[in-house]
C-alpha cells in the first residue's frame, strides 16, 4: 500500500488549507453553529467530534456549500468558498455525504468518472487529464480490480472505497467526509481510515465528522470537539481528550487509557 501514497501525492490538487472564520449557521428559530473558527493545514486529517445535535454536521454542510451560513466565511486557500461559482467551488472542495445514493446500475468505473464532472464541459467531455485522474483514484483506493463491477453488487467496505475513489478523482485540495465509517464493521472502518490518512499524506486537507471518539483520536492529527454549536476543545488528540471533555460532550464518566505504540487516548466508559 506504500506505493499508493506516492500516487495520491502526485496529484496536482494539493497544498491549500481550509480556514473557517466566525461561522454562524442555523435553521429557523435555532442556531446550530455559533461562531466557529478553524484553521486546517494542508496534509493533515482533522476530525470533528461531539454529541448528536452539536452542530458538527451543519458545520460540514456550511463548508461544503450545502447550507448557507448566516455569517462568517469559509476559505479554501485564498478564495471565499461561498463567493465562488458552484463549479469553481467543486474544484476546491469535495464531499462524501454520509449515505450517498448512486445512480442505478452504475459500475465502479462509472461512479469514479462522475467525480470528474466539475472539470468537464460541452467540449471537454473526456480529457486525458480525466482519464489519468480516474486511473490514479482507482489505484490509490485499491479498487481498480473492481472497475467493471456494478457498485450495488459490492460489499459495504468495497463500496465505501469506491466512493472515496470518486471523491479523489475530483482532485480537490480539500476533502470533506461525513461519517465515512458509520456503516462499516471494525475491519473495513479501519481500512477506510487508513486510506484517509494516505489521502492527507498526499498533501490534501481532510476534514471529517466522526461519531466514534476512539477512531477520531487514533486517526486524526487534530481533534475538534463541538458542543452546542461551539468548539469546546481543539488540538492533537492526546492533549485534548480527557475525562472532563468526555463528560462535557457526552455527559458520562470515563477513564482515559493510552494505546500502546503511539500513546493515543482510549476512552473507557465507567459502568454505573
Amino acid at each position, binding site marked *: 500500500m506504500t506505493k499508493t501514497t506516492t500516487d495520491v501525492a502526485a496529484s496536482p490538487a494539493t497544498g491549500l488549507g481550509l480556514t473557517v472564520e466566525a461561522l454562524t449557521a442555523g435553521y429557523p428559530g435555532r442556531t446550530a453553529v455559533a461562531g466557529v473558527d478553524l484553521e486546517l493545514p494542508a496534509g493533515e486529517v482533522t476530525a470533528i467530534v461531539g454529541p448528536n445535535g452539536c452542530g458538527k454536521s451543519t458545520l460540514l454542510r456550511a463548508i461544503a*456549500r450545502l447550507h448557507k451560513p448566516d455569517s462568517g466565511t469559509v476559505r479554501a486557500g485564498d478564495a471565499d468558498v461561498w463567493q465562488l461559482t458552484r463549479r469553481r467551488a467543486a474544484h476546491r472542495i469535495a464531499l462524501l455525504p454520509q449515505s450517498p445514493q448512486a445512480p442505478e446500475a452504475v459500475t465502479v468505473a462509472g461512479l469514479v468518472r462522475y467525480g470528474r464532472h466539475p472539470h468537464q464541459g460541452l467540449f471537454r467531455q473526456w480529457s486525458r487529464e480525466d482519464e489519468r485522474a480516474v486511473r490514479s483514484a482507482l489505484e490509490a483506493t485499491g479498487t481498480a480490480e473492481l472497475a*467493471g463491477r456494478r457498485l450495488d453488487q459490492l460489499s459495504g467496505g468495497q463500496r465505501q472505497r469506491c466512493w472515496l475513489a470518486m471523491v479523489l478523482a475530483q482532485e480537490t485540495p480539500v476533502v470533506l467526509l461525513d461519517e465515512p465509517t458509520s456503516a462499516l464493521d471494525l475491519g473495513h472502518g479501519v481500512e477506510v481510515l487508513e486510506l484517509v490518512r494516505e489521502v492527507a499524506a498526499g498533501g490534501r486537507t481532510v476534514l471529517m465528522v466522526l461519531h466514534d471518539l476512539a477512531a477520531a483520536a487514533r486517526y486524526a492529527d487534530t481533534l475538534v470537539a463541538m458542543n452546542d454549536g461551539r468548539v469546546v476543545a481543539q488540538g492533537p488528540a492526546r492533549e485534548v481528550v480527557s475525562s472532563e471533555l468526555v463528560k462535557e460532550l457526552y455527559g458520562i464518566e470515563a477513564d482515559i487509557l493510552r494505546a500502546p505504540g503511539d500513546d493515543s487516548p482510549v476512552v473507557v466508559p465507567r459502568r454505573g
Partner: protein
Amino acid sequence: MTDKTTDAVKTTDVTPPDSTVVRAGTLSYLFPRRSALIAVALSLVIALVTALAAFASSTSMPFSDTVAGLLGTGDSATVMLVRDFRLPRIAVGLLVGAALGIAGCLTQTLAGNRLATPDIIGVNDGATAAVVASVVGSSTGMIGDWWLGPLGAIGAAVLVVLCAGGAGHRGYRVLVVGIGVSTLIGAITDLVMSRENDNTAGGVFLWTVGSLNGRDWGVGTPLALILLILVPLALVAGNRLQMLRFDDDMGSALGVNVRLVRACSLALAVALAGVAVGIAGPIAFVALAAPVIAARLTGPARVPVLGSALTGAALIAAADALGRVIAPVEIPVGVVTSVLGGPFLLWVLFGSNKTGAES
C-alpha cells in the same frame, strides 16, 4: 499486492463504455456509439412506420405507389394524395409522440420513478381541461384552440408545485399532490362534458381520449417550430439530469445547481406535454412507455432523451395507423395506446428490473 493493483489499472479501461473519444488539443468529445446506433435504427423504424401508415389509409393504393408518393417520385396525383392528405396527420403524430416521449423521459428521471409521467403530475389533465372548457364559450360546439393545452398544462403544473411547496426532494411530494390535483381538474372536464348536448359531448369525448383525426399542417407547423426550440434544450437538460441520479447533496458537491436543473427540466416537460396534449388530446401511455423502451435500448449510462423522442414518435404513428386498419370505423389513437399500454404497464410493474450494467 501493489504490483497486482498496478497491473489491474493498466489493463482497466476507464473510458466510458459504448463511446468513442475524439480529442483535438484540449477539446474532447465522447461520441456515444450505442446511442447513435439506436438512433439510426429507430429512424429507420420511423421511416418504415411512416410508409406503412400512409399505405394504411382507406383509399386503396399499392405500397410501391405510396412510397413513391412519399418520396415525390410518383405521378402528381399520387404525390398530392400521399403528401397533402396522408402525410400531415402522420407528421403531427410523429411530432406529438416525440414531445410526449421526451416529457416522459424528463419526469421519470426527475422523480427517479418510471411511473412518474406527465399524466400523473396533472399536466395532461390541466391541458385537457383548458381545451375542453373552451368549448363552453364556443357557439359551434367545436374544440378550442390547441395553444390552450400548454396554458392549461402550465397552470396545472404551477398549482401542483405550489401545493407541494416546491419541486425539491426527488419530486415525491409533487407526485402525490399531482395525483390529487389531476383528479380535481379531471372533474372540471367531466362537468363541462355533462353540461353539453350529446353531439358536442361526443366530439369532446373523442378529443379527450386522444385522436389525430383531421390534424394537419395548421397545427403541425407551430408544433414543429416549438419542438425545434424545446428539443435541443431538452437534450442539454438530459445531460445535466444525469447528475440528479445522485442524491441532491452529492450532486451539489459535484458542482451542479440541482434546483435549477430540476426546475428547468420540469418546465420543459410541462411545456412539451402541454403542447402535445393541446394538439392531439391526452394520448395515454406513450410518455410512460417510450422512455422505458429507450432506456432498455441505449443502456443505463445516459438519460435517453433522443431515444425517447424517436420511440415515442414511432409508437404514436404505429398506433394511429393500427387504429385505422383494424376496424371498419377508425379507432382513436388514444384508445389504441390505452389497450396496448395496459399490458405494458403490468410488465413495467411486475417485470424484471434488470437494466444491465453500464459496461
